[in-house]
């Protein structure tokens, strides 16, 4: 259930970022979490794709999760976002 909080926060963040960057489409998102977190890539993507149905900006985005053994924080970090823009700038 706590995935919902994470995904909702992610969507809000991506919408804001896309406006700022004038993005047409978000392609992928890399998240970094601690290795013991119960967040799961498949599950996160399932919830995300259900929440962004018919949202042309986000509906094709894929979330990738990396777990770093040295990352002991409970933060969920958006490391990078790949997006399609008008002119690539």
């Amino acid at each position, binding site marked *: 259930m*706590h995935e919902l909080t994470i995904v909702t926060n992610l969507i809000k963040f991506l919408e804001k970022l896309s406006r700022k960057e004038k993005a047409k489409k978000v392609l992928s998102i890399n998240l970094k979490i601690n290795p013991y977190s119960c967040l799961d890539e498949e599950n996160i993507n399932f919830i995300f794709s259900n929440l962004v149905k018919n949202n042309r900006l986000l509906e094709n985005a894929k979330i990738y999760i990396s777990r770093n053994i040295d990352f002991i924080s409970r*933060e969920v*970090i*958006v490391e990078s976002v790949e997006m399609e823009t008008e002119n690539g700038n």
Partner: protein
Amino acid sequence: MGIKKINIGKNLLAENDKIAEENFLLLKEKRILSFNLMGSPGAGKTKILERTIPYIKKKFGCGVIEGDIAGTFDSKRLEKFKIPIVQINTGGVCHLDAFMIKKGIEKLPLDEIKILFVENVGNLVCPAEFKIGIEKNIVVSSITEGEDKSVKYPLIFKISDVCLINKTDLLKFLKTDIKKIERNILTINKNLKIIKISAETGENVSAWINYIFSEYRKYNLG
């Protein structure tokens, strides 16, 4: 049309973590030592509070924030102690987050409280993922849950300060190997303080009470 990749480094839980820090600082300012009790449904969290509160009450004012998805069963069980209790119903959410704790703290008479217990929603997964600003994390694991819970749900054991292994009175009826439970827990977190108790019979509850008092002394020196 072009594609670009932007490096970010933004924490998706930043808002929660900021409120957690505010909770932490407010409790520190009021010199209230707080304990976050986590564990599976039925691990004995409320029973442990029922055993603990009478000892604490004799020395210090204490209060409780009760977190449940629905209902007020747990806070009703604690009403007899005549201490401030705030019941939070998460309405389907599987954990307490920092904002719910903030609202709970606001309802408590903080000047009358020295020790605060938070009973988190019964769950070994989600409560561990959220910072709430409570000083000590306590995971309750009862021997009826088997020997492998720490290995299956490592995060909650990683972030905890103490593991209360509860229901030791049932050892005589079960094949559970308590040494194996302890070994498994220590492979996940070698610094975790383990206290074996039976909240039902009161066996060794004094060790847990002594821990609370000794932490309270340390907290007030710091």
